[in-house]
């Protein structure tokens, strides 16, 4: 794939004193629990392959301990892999020496942290300008762009304050501004919103989507919250015990869960609100013009609302003024029930 900004290939990470000896066992199929029990080594990541596309938000999701933080730290080599390749923008970052690595971190990537990780003794303005001052940019240029980005994240007027004078949500805005000031293509966000309460979190997600519309950065976002993942993901990777269980377009994963684990994971989601019309429709284009029009990006809730309870209704689905398919309300109703329960109704409680 040509538009891939990062390629992660056959990545393995094993924690423990004798990781290189363990690698062959991991490669020949040993899983996390067995390796811990038999050899006392933690299998952090096992055979990870991900293509991260330029300008997309890739969300990595998994429960606590599934290896999300470990994975994202391989992208800027805060952690070195036991085996495998990480290609960022055409360069194999495992071949970089110390100085080249510093250069890569300074110019190509930025990071936002769960616990904000701001410098407590520096002002909001200096914190926001940190990536540039590390590079040794001119003082005035730094302040100017730091001010601009603080304004973009809604923190104008707070420049002279110290981090402890801000609420958690505002501190994370500084964290976001800091990442943006670095002006790098890749933005790594490790559970950036997990420490925030739901309302603030939701507004921070909106802020991110709004910024992303303008900036088209390549973002790797980690979360353990499925709603958050579905809201912002272009590409969703689901991790379990250091392995990828499924990856793909979020809508696709919702409709075609690969195994019971994912089915379980997605079973509690409000499907009517998350599923889009275009993922449920059939791609037949009917010639008749008397059908009501519906935007493909609307969610099923909107479709149900428009049908006014009429189960036999059919819509013509449009995207950008072009008809792309038709939507039968019966398909909508089917999609609302997870696939597992559809095929085996006795399982449903």
């Amino acid at each position, binding site marked *: 794939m040509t538009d891939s900004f990062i390629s992660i290939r056959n990545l393995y990470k094993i924690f423990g004193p004798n990781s290189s000896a363990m690698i062959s066992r991991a490669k020949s199929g040993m899983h996390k629990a067995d390796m811990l029990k038999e050899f006392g080594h933690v299998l952090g990541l096992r055979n990870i392959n991900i293509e991260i596309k330029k300008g997309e938000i890739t969300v990595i999701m998994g429960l606590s301990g599934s290896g999300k933080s470990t994975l994202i730290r391989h992208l800027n080599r805060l952690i070195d892999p036991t085996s495998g390749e990480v290609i960022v923008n055409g360069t194999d970052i495992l071949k970089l020496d110390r100085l080249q690595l510093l250069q890569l971190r300074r110019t190509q990537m930025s*990071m936002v942290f769960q616990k904000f*990780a701001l410098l*407590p*003794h520096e002002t909001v303005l200096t914190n926001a300008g940190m*990536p540039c001052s*590390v590079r040794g940019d001119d003082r005035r240029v730094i302040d100017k762009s730091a001010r601009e980005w603080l304004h973009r994240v809604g923190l104008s007027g707070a420049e002279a304050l110290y981090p*402890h004078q801000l609420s958690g949500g505002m501190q994370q805005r500084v964290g976001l501004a800091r990442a943006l000031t670095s002006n790098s293509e890749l933005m790594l966000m490790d559970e950036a919103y997990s420490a925030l309460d739901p309302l603030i979190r939701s507004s921070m997600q909106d802020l991110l989507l709004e910024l992303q519309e303008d900036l088209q950065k390549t973002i790797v976002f980690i979360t353990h919250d499925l709603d958050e993942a579905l809201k912002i993901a272009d590409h969703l990777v689901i991790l379990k015990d250091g392995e990828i269980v499924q990856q793909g377009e979020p809508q696709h994963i919702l409709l075609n869960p690969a195994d019971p684990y994912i089915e379980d994971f997605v079973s509690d989601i409000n499907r009517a609100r998350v599923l889009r019309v275009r993922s449920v429709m059939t791609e037949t284009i009917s010639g008749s013009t008397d059908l009501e029009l519906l935007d493909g990006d609307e969610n099923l809730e909107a479709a149900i609302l428009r049908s006014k309870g009429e189960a036999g209704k059919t819509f013509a689905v449009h995207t950008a003024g072009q008809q792309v398919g038709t939507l039968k309300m019966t398909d909508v109703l089917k999609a609302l029930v997870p696939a597992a329960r559809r095929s085996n109704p006795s399982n449903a409680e």
Partner: protein
Amino acid sequence: MTLDELVSKAGGGEAEVEAIPFPSLDVLHKACGSIPRTRDMTAGLERLFLDVKDPIKVVLDPLTQPLSWALRNAIETMQSLPWWAAIIILVLIAQLAGRRVGVTLFVLASFLGLAFIDHFAYAMQTLAIILVCTLICVLIGVPIGIAMSRSNVLERWLTPMLDMLQTLPTFVYLIPLIFLFSVTEPKLYGIAIILYAIVPAIRLTNLGIRLVDADVLEAADAFGMTSRQKLLRVQLPLALPNIMAGINQTIMLSLSMVVIASLVSAPGLGTLVLRGINKLELGVGLVAGLGIVILAIVLDRVSRAALQRVNKMHQPGA
């Protein structure tokens, strides 16, 4: 020859249990002449010390000469200042360091009081020694602490040495130093004070840097800071409250050592205390002791006020 045989030869048989002497060096020497007596051992140690003294002096003398020079000059400068200038400068320093009006006023009152009872010159001598020694402790101790925080091996080696420096009775320090340097040289007591007082500066720098929030350090790495940038921009500033606490302790330890160091000709309030003891001049000793207490409170309050100021900047909640 087994131990048992030796013991029985030394007199006393198995029958008289109480009479068996402990097989100390002296007792064993009686049984076998080739075993040294305890006094041979101490004499040997002394000879050894005298033998290595000269080579050590060759190295140590030039290294420590600046210390003598700094102490002499500091004491002279402090004493050559007119009393009002000295008080103004000290009060200004207190204000700048602590920024607390109450503390500054207390400092002013203390020095006026010391001057009023004619102890000002002595107090200035003591203060000069403390300032020089504290400064050197910081200049040497903080870098050692930084090195220690970066290497677990170094920490493992240094910790017992620091423990020893802190637990050795203060008089014991003076013994090897008296051998090495003449009593007329200021560096003799300077080294004793520094060895004793440097420990908390090293320890708390090490501790402070090791306690720096791992998340902030990770952020520093993620944005490509060099280890030098990390040290100056993250580790030292975040460790500053601990380092300041260490300096506060260093100052207090210097004060306690400078009093004892009057035994080896350190000038200042300690000499008055010593006179009180030697000549049984009870009043002189007590008043000088009071002066030391006042000096201790002044130093503690000012350095603590500075510490609190730094703490407040870091985490206002606390």
